């Protein structure tokens, strides 16, 4: 091992953490150029090569880049938008809202988006992300600054993306996908309204205010980018004499041509994901405006923030007493920059970056804030969600989709799913206790709780 491994966990989480995490976080610690620690966050579970919930920073001169350290769904991430509606106003309309959004935001196997673009536009779209959307009336003026990296990551180059990735992705903008992806109508939980002063900085002023959370990524475009480079990195490793303990740890020097090509393609996919979530938000705004007979501006449907949780980015960090540029891989981990950082929007700079942690569709989610301690300890990173504890097959054995849908309705959560099998696989019992994950990171000082959000309407991909 080049560096030690560091695992954030309570005793309860550690006792239940699958052994694969320990092995994988150790494997990552053996990769060339890794600095300080190989991290596993409190939600860590087994992944391909790197654990999900893993963070690793590499020296940009001597270190590697790994498609498996980013994940197949490049820039899978979370987006949170607020409304000025109280739950009492929304409660009678939840079914109407969910049904309408379900019709506007395609979800499930092989779906196409309602927003079509030409293949010739893909270079601009994937270079400029939400900035491109703002220039084409597909985003509000203040949307880009409330997206990580200001709406797009610099360094995209569409010529490094395969034709297959482009043809897969071009018709998928504005689609939710499937697996663990969802779109949720949520309410600020009055019993877990942890920091009202901080919440106010993010535009949350009521303890039963209605929010919308979106969890999805770069769809087939990002998956194809990862597939293409994972395959090609294997042969490249032989040339560079790099040996890894798992084929999914395939990596190459960041400074090599292949490493740089992957980075440029991966950035395209990350920007694709920002645009995908933006187009979904546009549909959500349309739906709320239609149901409440007020335009989305009047409903104050501003973006609180959009965070990546599968990405590799070049960032400057201080460690060992000096400032250094590193390539931070966050795979199932969220950036958690503390107050004062220049990459945080001016409106949030005094308080820190919003951190959005998505839970299972039954247990709710959290809005947290980044901290100075995260900058010191984890390259400004924290957990991303609750993490699975049960396989999809096992979950389906435990509960049927229709039965789960009925029980959730009894508990005040109206769910619409692309498939009943997919719904059963995402049951809350298949996931770790998100509150334990969030508490662990809060106690470690890596991210601090602001509010908890409970689901009242859910669209499951």
């Amino acid at each position, binding site marked *: 091992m080049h560096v030690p491994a560091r695992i954030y966990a309570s005793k309860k989480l550690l006792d239940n953490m699958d052994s694969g995490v320990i092995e994988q976080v150790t494997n990552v610690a053996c990769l060339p150029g890794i600095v300080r620690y190989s991290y596993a966050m409190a939600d860590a579970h087994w992944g391909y090569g790197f654990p999900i919930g893993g963070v690793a920073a590499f020296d940009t001169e001597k270190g590697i880049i790994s498609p498996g350290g980013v994940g197949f769904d490049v820039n899978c991430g979370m987006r949170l938008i607020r409304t000025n509606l109280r739950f009492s106003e929304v409660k009678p309309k939840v079914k109407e809202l969910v049904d309408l959004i379900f019709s506007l935001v395609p979800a499930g*196997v092989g779906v196409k988006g309602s927003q079509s673009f030409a293949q010739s536009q893909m270079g601009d779209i994937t270079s400029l992300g939400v900035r491109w959307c703002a220039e084409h009336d597909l985003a509000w003026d203040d949307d880009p600054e409330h997206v990580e990296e200001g709406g797009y990551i610099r360094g995209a180059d569409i010529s490094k993306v395969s034709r297959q990735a482009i043809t897969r992705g071009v018709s998928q903008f504005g689609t939710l996908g499937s697996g663990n992806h969802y779109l949720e109508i949520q309410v600020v939980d009055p019993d877990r309204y942890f920091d009202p002063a901080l919440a106010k900085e993010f535009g949350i002023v009521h303890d039963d205010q209605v929010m919308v959370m979106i969890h999805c990524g770069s769809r*087939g475009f990002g998956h194809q980018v*990862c597939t293409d480079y994972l395959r090609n990195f294997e042969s490249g490793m032989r040339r560079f004499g790099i040996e890894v303990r798992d*084929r999914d740890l395939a990596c190459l020097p960041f400074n090599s041509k292949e490493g740089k090509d992957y980075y440029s393609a991966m950035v395209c996919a990350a920007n694709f994901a920002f645009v995908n979530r933006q187009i979904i938000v546009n549909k959500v705004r349309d739906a709320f405006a239609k149901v409440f007979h007020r335009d989305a501006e009047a409903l104050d449907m501003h973006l609180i923030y959009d965070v990546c949780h599968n990405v590799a980015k070049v960032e400057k960090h201080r460690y060992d007493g000096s400032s250094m540029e590193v390539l931070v891989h966050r795979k199932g981990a969220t950036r958690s920059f503390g107050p004062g950082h220049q990459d945080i929007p001016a409106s949030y700079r005094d308080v820190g970056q919003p951190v959005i942690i998505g839970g299972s569709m039954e247990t709710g989610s959290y809005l947290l804030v980044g901290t100075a301690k995260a900058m010191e300890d984890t390259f400004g990173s924290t957990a991303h969600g609750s993490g*699975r504890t049960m396989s999809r097959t096992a979950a389906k054995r435990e509960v049927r989709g229709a039965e789960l849908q009925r029980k959730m309705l009894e508990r005040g959560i109206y769910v619409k799913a692309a498939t009943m099998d*997919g719904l059963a*696989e995402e049951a809350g019992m298949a996931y770790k206790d998100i509150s334990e994950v969030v508490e662990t990171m809060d106690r470690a000082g890596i991210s601090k709780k602001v509010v908890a959000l409970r689901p009242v309407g859910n669209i499951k991909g």
Partner: protein
Amino acid sequence: MPFRFLPDVALADIAFEAESDSPDGLFETCGAAITDIMVDPKTLRPTTERSFSLESEDLDRLLYDFMTELIVIKDVESLLFKEYEVKVSPQGTSLTAVIKGEAIDRERHRLRNDVKAVTMHLFGVKHEGRRWRTTVVLDI
């Protein structure tokens, strides 16, 4: 054995094991497994045909590329396949495939999980005696 799901291999995704007495059969079985993950095959009809050829460095990568091609066709053309006829070259470095299925119909097809990618985890073709085996973990 056509294919068998491995529920404990990938918590968040889906893994299966496939076996056949020939590379052709192994590829066809892997195709059928991918179909089974995405849709109840009993609800699918073989009314639309697609054919393609592939070349790769070795049998491992040929299988990886074959499964990836099925995922690409699903995303680009919204087609799912019920019948697979694959001919792998004796060297194991190229193939021709004729596959039959139909466009996704959300009313008639019982859809399941969307398969998004083939991972390299545990992946590889093993040839023992007259049996070809593989383990595949798919990203869901």
